[in-house]
């Protein structure tokens, strides 16, 4: 008769935890227009902080300029907050909001 094996515990993620994780991914980093900040500076900041190429950064900057705001990134909350902190350190008006 073969020796019995101890049961192996298999971690099971609860549906509530999984839902929280999914929800946390959806925070929008929003840059708002300001009449003082140079457009070229906004492009520079978007490129340096988010790694966008010139075309993408310029498109986002123009959206900020023409529409008053643009979502420049979608990130988990903690990362989005860090992004907003960095944008503030560059002097940009920026907020984060649930996507």
């Amino acid at each position, binding site marked *: 008769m073969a020796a019995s094996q101890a049961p192996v515990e298999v971690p099971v993620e609860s549906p509530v935890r999984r839902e929280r994780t999914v929800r946390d991914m959806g925070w929008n980093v929003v840059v708002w*227009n*300001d*009449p*003082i*900040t*140079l457009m*070229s*500076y906004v*492009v*520079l900041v978007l*490129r*340096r902080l988010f790694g966008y190429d010139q075309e993408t950064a310029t498109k986002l900057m123009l959206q900020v*300029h023409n529409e008053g705001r643009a979502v420049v990134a979608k990130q988990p909350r903690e990362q989005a*907050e860090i992004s*907003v*902190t960095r944008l*503030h*350190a*560059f*002097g*940009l*008006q*920026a*907020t*984060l*909001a649930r996507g």
Partner: protein
Amino acid sequence: MRLDGDERAALLSIVETLRPRLGADARTTPRAYDEPELEEEYARLMRPEVEASRDADIELVRESLRAEGDRRELDDSQALCWARALNHLRLAAGGLLGIEEDGWEEVVDPALLETAEFSMLMALGWMQERIVQSLEG
């Protein structure tokens, strides 16, 4: 970057004039959240970091302007410090001038043209544009 003695003195004067205005209004102390509780937490935990970064940038600019010699060699990090500092100072000048809408450069209120703050805003903008262009290669 090349600045003669008069230019350095003028810029330093602009910095010293505008520096106290930082943090005085919403533009220079931007919010992160719409929700008051989250914003309060951000202000408590993260805003000091933003202000420390801003103060460090401005201090670098001040030290650079106080140093002797007309020529300044800025590496990428220092040039970014200058660009950030100039932006913060421009926001302060814009606040003093009450500029709230786009298009102010095209149709300038004659009363604004006469103010020292307007000259500061334009001078800082010219300098910031040059630094941004050099950073973008």
